[in-house]
């Protein structure tokens, strides 16, 4: 797992309070996954990585691995 993926997994675990998140975890299958949780994760990720994501792209992401890719792309674009 890359550093970015590892951190994203940890942030998802903290926001959802669920252990055992992996890159393959699909957001919509997670218990506790609400739009408010999604926005908490968004601000945590932006704070952690110092990036700003387009909300449309962010909301379209299906699993943790895709989110990690999105963050990596944003980091590369800086």
């Amino acid at each position, binding site marked *: 797992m890359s550093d970015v993926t590892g951190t994203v997994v940890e942030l998802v675990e903290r926001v959802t309070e669920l252990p055992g998140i992996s890159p393959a975890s699909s957001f919509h299958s997670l218990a506790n996954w609400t*739009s*408010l949780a999604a926005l*908490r994760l968004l*601000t945590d990720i932006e704070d952690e990585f110092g990036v700003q994501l387009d*909300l449309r792209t962010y909301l379209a992401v299906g699993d943790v691995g895709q989110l990690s890719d999105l963050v990596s792309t944003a980091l590369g674009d800086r």
Partner: protein
Amino acid sequence: MTTENDVLARVRALRDPAAPADPDLLADLATLSTPKALREAGRGLAAVAPVRFTPDGRTVRPLRVAVAATFTAENIAPILHAELLRAGIAPQLHVCGFDQLLVELSDPGSDLAAFAPDVTLCLLHDGALLPRDWDPTDLTTLTDATGHRLDMIEHAVAGFTQRTTGTVVLHTVPLARNQQRRVISYGGRAALGRAWRAVNQHLLDLPTRHPAVHVLDFEALLADHPGPVRDDRLYRFASMAWTIGAEAAYAREAAAFCRVTAGLSAKLAIVDLDNTLWGGVLGDDGPEGIQVGGAYPGNCYTDLQQSLQALRRQGVLLAVCSKNEQANVDAVLAAHPELTLRPDDFVATVANWGRKDHNIRQIVQTLNIGLDSVVFVDDSSFECELVAREIPEVRVVRLSGDPAGHAAAVLEPQFFGALATTATDRERTGMYRARADREQFAASFVSTGDYLAGLGLTVTVTPADEYTLPRIVQLAARTNQFNLHPRAHGEPRTREMAASADHLVLGFEVADRFGREGLVGAAWVATAGDRWTIENFVLSCRVFSRGVEQAVLAHLAALARGAAADTLAADYRRGDRNKAAASLVETFTEGADTDGVTAYTLDLSAAVPAVPAWITLEWKEPAHV
């Protein structure tokens, strides 16, 4: 940040109901500084019984707190929970649904009414007050519309307060930047500014009409807030009007308000003097040498004094607790031309060399108030740690860094607050003074016990060398309080003695777990024959009452015995200012007085003084240049 992550890890650990209690966690929540960490701690602790993270014998005050907002405010709940815990409150929180403020306040059968909150926090945003399509060329219509909406809110709030016993808290509302910039003319923007100020004015006027309503001036608070108040993505997508940073700023202020409501406001500020109320050390620098008034940095200390005076005028009691000679302190407070605070401003002025925790307990007992209503203000990490450890109920403000920040540190909202002040608050100091006047403050001298043991004190003794000699000479010239003979040993005499085979000049350094204090004292000793005589001994007031002089004395006695001496003597020229040095000779026998110098002796054949158990004594060879 490691400490922040450590605290969060402890919060997560506590969520396991089988995990052991963590009684220090409540105090350590103070180390959380980022809104994100606060939110996580608040979410984690919401389901944990406070008794599992509170020290034995201490309780957090229960309080029912509701949040009703015109926008999506669910995410503020965990931050508010954490801030309330930090304020000593165990909250039961109720958050009303999105934009349910008017409904929940108005309906006598609402969930909010059923919750029966002690405090109802009403969160407003500009979008709830402005018409969606307001016309920049027609601000009269805008003012009519905002006035109408404010009337509706006021009506709902007034009705709610009449049906319930709790208080309702509103706040002034910031106008979003992109609303303001819809107006492009500067004249028009000024007019919009006036119209928006009228909205906030209306909100600020509510308490004059409704006694159970209070208003936080949030718009003014945000002037110092470093980040954006709104993230337009979150606002457009989920109607979240505030960023996490704005939520944290509000939660902090709201928690301070709840603290006042719960009767947890501090009533007494106990302040140190040297490097707190003024810059410098009174005993060493003299009344003319302390920094107060005039230009920087003296004006920073004046700012703190004026702030404390403002507190005093609103009913907060002030007391002094300082390591100093009482007579010097009384004289300076009465006569120094630049001081703002005078003897009459304090209910008690305690200056001695005793333990501060003992002095604080005595002050509090005399005034008959609770330890939990005390704020202790000091620049010394030693004193702050001692008080925090020995009296955990006391709130400790450690003043560090630039003195320009000291007043703000004391005025942090979580310490002092009142729902209202009255005329009798102005007189309170006088009433309490009478009680304290009769009291003699005499705390015990040396702080023994486990606190000092935990400090890890190391005293390193070294004969004067080219590196330490200039500092030793400087200390001798500066040290007015702990010396046997004021300013008797200048540079020529010190150099002469250091080079002489019949004399010894020792410097000593002190370090503890807070860091190194550097060279803090020195001794000048005549070593000829079987009687060693301490001609002078100086010690910086920074390290008083820790047994440092006893450790050095033990070392000297051992050296003297090793050189076959049977007597250790000390010549003490005792005056008004150097009484502190008496602790050096407290185990000696007092002898004859010659021209104001008393000869004290210690018989080394009988017993050699021991190094205090909490001190590690080290010996360092001099450096040869």
